[in-house]
């Protein structure tokens, strides 16, 4: 294992020198080649508790919130903060955390894990806590149907150790019903606002009862198919919440304040990131801390200074104007971001980009489930880019965007220049992009000295 560690760490150093992305997955690749069991040795082998965070949306932010809560209580945390959430990324995290002699510090590992990687990762790290945020439609061409995704998570949840804790977003019917027969501890979280924040649309993914497939009835809808539901046919309903957000206030693009009820009191959280989804992520993180038995004595201040993860409505000072960089990868994340932006009267000047890559997928049909129709009236000028800018341009045209307000610029650097040129001084440019173009655009911004490197946020 020592050889694997040395090689992995050397790879990380080399990758950083070459600026290939913070060495987020290469060290894991190298270390695993030398010692396939290195991840298990460094975690299970040394009694390091692992919290696994999985689900379609909100993994990165939930893991960041949980890490911040734990650190505020003096707990040391190892976290894959660059979103390197496949097996190699997790291994890199462990390799980077361990000393050269293979000793892990007395820390909790908070690991976001890709839904498809979970099946392989769970047996290697034997999670103490599994947090499941939600299951939305995401990359059908990679994951297949959402029922397949839920099925994999269900299998992992059923296979958890008896002492492990399963944390579920009870507002998501399929997530709520994961491993229903499992005897171990389960913590539920969700929203309990008593009023709607969203309405069911035809883009909602999972509004049928996970048990009998009847159509669910919603007392309140909070975000896409998340809400307070019950099944009129079999009686399945959202259970009582152990951790409940009882109040949410969103302040433009600046932040979210929410009240979170926990079993022995409540927390008033003030988070410098905006959106209903942020309230869900915060509740998930609170529930994760509860699962670990960590009391949140400093919880109310823990998230106050936490900047967004890269490209999550990240506000960037670009000199003459301000850029809001937002990464969106599926209809729900796109629509959630657009809703948050709409609260602030945005977007008006827009750069939008999608690319087909191994991680972004090949099929962009889901763009037709993004509510661009609702955005078009506000748009003054749009630059379209990325390897599949052609697809986006068609979508925007059919959403009613006048062609005179849209320019397709294939190359990202030129697209960024054009979008900035079209944004008057003192105004805001919104950048909405898929995963790969977000990273590429952020790198361009970093070269211009506007932001740090993405793995350092």
């Amino acid at each position, binding site marked *: 294992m020592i050889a694997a560690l040395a090689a992995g760490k050397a790879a990380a150093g080399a990758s950083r020198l070459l600026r290939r992305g913070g060495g987020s997955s290469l060290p894991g690749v190298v270390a695993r080649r030398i010692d396939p069991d290195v991840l298990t040795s460094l975690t299970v082998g040394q009694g390091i508790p692992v919290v696994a965070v999985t689900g379609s949306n909100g993994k990165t932010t939930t893991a960041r919130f949980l890490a911040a809560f734990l650190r505020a209580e003096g707990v040391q945390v190892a976290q894959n903060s660059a979103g390197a959430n496949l097996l190699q990324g997790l291994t890199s995290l462990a390799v980077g955390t361990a000393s050269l002699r293979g000793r892990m510090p007395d820390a909790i590992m908070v690991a976001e894990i890709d*839904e*498809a990687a979970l*099946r392989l990762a769970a047996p290697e790290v034997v999670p103490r806590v599994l947090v499941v945020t939600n299951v939305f*439609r995401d990359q*059908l*061409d*990679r*994951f*297949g*149907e*959402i*029922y*397949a*995704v839920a*099925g*994999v998570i269900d*299998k992992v949840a059923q296979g958890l150790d008896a002492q492990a804790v399963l944390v579920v977003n009870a507002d998501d019917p399929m997530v709520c019903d994961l491993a229903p027969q499992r005897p171990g501890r389960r913590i539920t979280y969700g929203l309990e606002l008593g009023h709607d924040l969203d309405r*069911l*649309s*035809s*883009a*909602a*993914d999972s*509004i*049928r009862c996970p048990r009998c*497939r009847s*159509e669910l009835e919603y007392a309140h809808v909070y975000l896409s198919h998340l809400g307070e539901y019950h099944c009129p046919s079999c009686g399945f309903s959202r259970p009582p919440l152990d951790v409940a957000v009882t109040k949410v206030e969103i302040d433009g693009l600046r932040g979210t304040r929410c009240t979170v009820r926990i079993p022995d009191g409540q927390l008033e959280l003030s988070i410098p990131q905006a959106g209903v989804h942020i309230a869900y992520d915060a509740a998930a993180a609170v529930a994760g801390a509860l699962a670990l038995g960590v009391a949140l004595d400093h919880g109310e201040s823990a998230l106050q200074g936490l900047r967004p993860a890269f490209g999550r409505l990240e506000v960037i000072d670009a000199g003459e104007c301000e850029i809001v960089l937002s990464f969106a990868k599926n209809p729900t994340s796109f629509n959630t971001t657009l809703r948050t932006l709409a609260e602030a009267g945005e977007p008006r000047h827009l750069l939008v980009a999608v690319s*087909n890559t*191994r991680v972004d*997928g*090949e*099929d962009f*049909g*889901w*763009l*037709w*489930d993004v*509510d661009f*129709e*609702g955005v078009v009236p506000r748009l003054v000028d749009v630059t379209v880019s990325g390897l*599949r800018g*052609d*697809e986006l*341009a*068609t*979508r925007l*045209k*059919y959403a009613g965007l006048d*062609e005179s307000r849209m320019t*397709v610029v294939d190359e990202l650097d030129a697209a960024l220049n054009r979008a900035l040129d079209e944004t008057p001084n003192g105004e805001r440019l919104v950048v909405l992009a898929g995963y790969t173009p977000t990273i590429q655009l952020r790198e361009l911004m970093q070269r211009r000295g506007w932001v740090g490197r993405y793995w350092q946020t």
Partner: protein
Amino acid sequence: MTIAEFAADEDAPTLRIAHLYPALLNVAGDGGNVRAIQFRAHRRGIGSTVVDIGLDESPDFAAFDLVFFHGGQDVEMSVVAADLQRKSGALRDAADAGVVIFGVCAGLQLLGRRYIPSSGPAMEGAGVLDLETRGGSQRFMQHAACDVTVAGDSATVVGFENHSGLTDLGPDAAPFGTVIAGAGNNGVDGTEGARRDNVFATYLHGPVLPKNPWLTDHLLVLAVERATGAAFVPRPLDDSIEDRNHQVALDKAIANRGQRTALQPAQMGR
């Protein structure tokens, strides 16, 4: 997706469009097909109204000019199949009456006679098209293209296929197109989709109509001519954005010719 109602110009018709099970068959963005027809009709001054048709409803489909029946996941498909029997007679009547029916993926399969999944009971289709589909062991997930002829006019249609069902056409159904790239109905016989009268069904998602304005306009002409009883020649539009979209998709389909998937899918296991 918000579906707008478009008002017609004076003396122009308003198309009556039925959108079958939009809340169930919604995973692949196929609703964009409805948008494309409405948009291109609107640019010619033709109005349109869309009626969403859900479970338990049994409308007279012959009262519509166009019916859309899109793709969905297996669970939703079985819910739809159980409901479909109350609609199948009216759908067959509409097809006989020349209503334009456009089916995609699960819509194609359920317009057929039967769908026999790999596990579980067989589902009865609407019997509009003479075809049968069996569940296959492999998923075809890739850019695809086929040659299509409508009203003596031929062109290439592009899209993205994502299905594991294997469809065989019976003697009373013609293929919608001939495979250029992709698996088509079954990966073997080179047929893509199915067709009879004004019923068109395909495996192509994308959604397929926005990036194939040629096909959209042919469907539009058939629907308008049915609505008015008079010949209709649509005014040409500037399709440079759609044409580029079409070309990029076609290039990807051609480049992937002979493959079964565009991506190595995640191993989700069973």
